[in-house]
């Protein structure tokens, strides 16, 4: 029997409580404290969660790739499962980026989607690439071969993260706003504070959901092994 259990320092109830408190605090800051943006007005409030969710999606894909590397390096079955769950989280948060981004685009640009925008298209490519990860994973029978294929695929995808992130910085013309430049963020005061809280809140929420899904997957795996034993 292969053990996929791994002990964690922070308990799930503590993480869930932290997520709830941080998300509530972030929402309170976004809707009751942060002033309206001079250029975009009220609609700019989508930014705080849209950007936080985008960075969280990148973090999940990067985490999935890291666990994939660990799996290929050490042949650790726990790492394969963790890589799978991280990629799954990345796809969920990636879908949220596309939804919130489309809504923001509709208010700001008058279009739900613009195919001429490199940043949008590259993020969609990254999202679809990781959606295809599940097609690959479930087209191969469970076992070391599936784990190896999935790990290699997850590792390849990580190349798209910097490309997607840097797309608006290397583009000659764009309408997607750039808020983080080499000289720092283009905003400060309460706006920066609200963004930082929202970013931490979304990261903690993602990690909580990751741990919950991972716990479920481990129980499922152990049950299957018990049935076979």
């Amino acid at each position, binding site marked *: 029997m292969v053990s996929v259990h791994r002990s964690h320092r922070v308990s799930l109830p503590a993480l869930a409580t932290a997520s709830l408190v941080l998300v509530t605090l972030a*929402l309170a800051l976004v809707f009751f404290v942060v002033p309206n943006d001079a250029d975009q*007005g*009220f*609609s700019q*409030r*989508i930014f705080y*969660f*849209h950007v936080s*969710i985008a960075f969280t999606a990148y973090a999940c894909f990067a985490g999935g790739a890291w666990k994939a590397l660990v799996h290929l390096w050490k042949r650790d079955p726990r790492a394969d499962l963790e890589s799978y769950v991280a990629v799954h989280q990345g796809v*969920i948060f990636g*879908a*949220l980026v596309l*939804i*919130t981004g489309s*809504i*923001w685009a*509709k*208010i700001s640009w008058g279009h739900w989607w613009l195919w001429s925008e490199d940043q949008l298209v590259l993020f969609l490519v990254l999202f679809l690439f990781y959606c295809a990860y599940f097609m690959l994973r479930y087209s191969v029978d469970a076992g070391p071969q599936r784990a190896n294929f999935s790990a290699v695929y997850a590792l390849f995808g990580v190349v798209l993260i910097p490309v997607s992130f840097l797309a608006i910085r290397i583009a000659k013309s764009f309408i997607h706003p750039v808020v983080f430049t080499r000289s720092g963020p283009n905003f400060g005061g309460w706006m920066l504070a609200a963004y930082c809280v929202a970013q931490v809140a979304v990261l903690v*929420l993602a990690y909580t*959901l990751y741990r*919950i*899904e991972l716990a*479920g997957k481990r*129980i*499922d795996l152990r*049950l299957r092994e*018990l*049935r076979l034993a």
Partner: protein
Amino acid sequence: MTTAEKYVTAAYCAVFAVVLVYVVLIALKLQRLEREVDELERTGPKAAEGERETISVG
């Protein structure tokens, strides 16, 4: 409510809805796992007893 307010509300509701659906799906899965554990608990000892009865001794 202005158009911008409606869109911002829609964006945050979409985030909430997706997270909620995800949590519901995980909860349903955990319920299924709980049922399977119960089933295994019920059938496991019986199967073991059955096996013991069929083994010939001596």
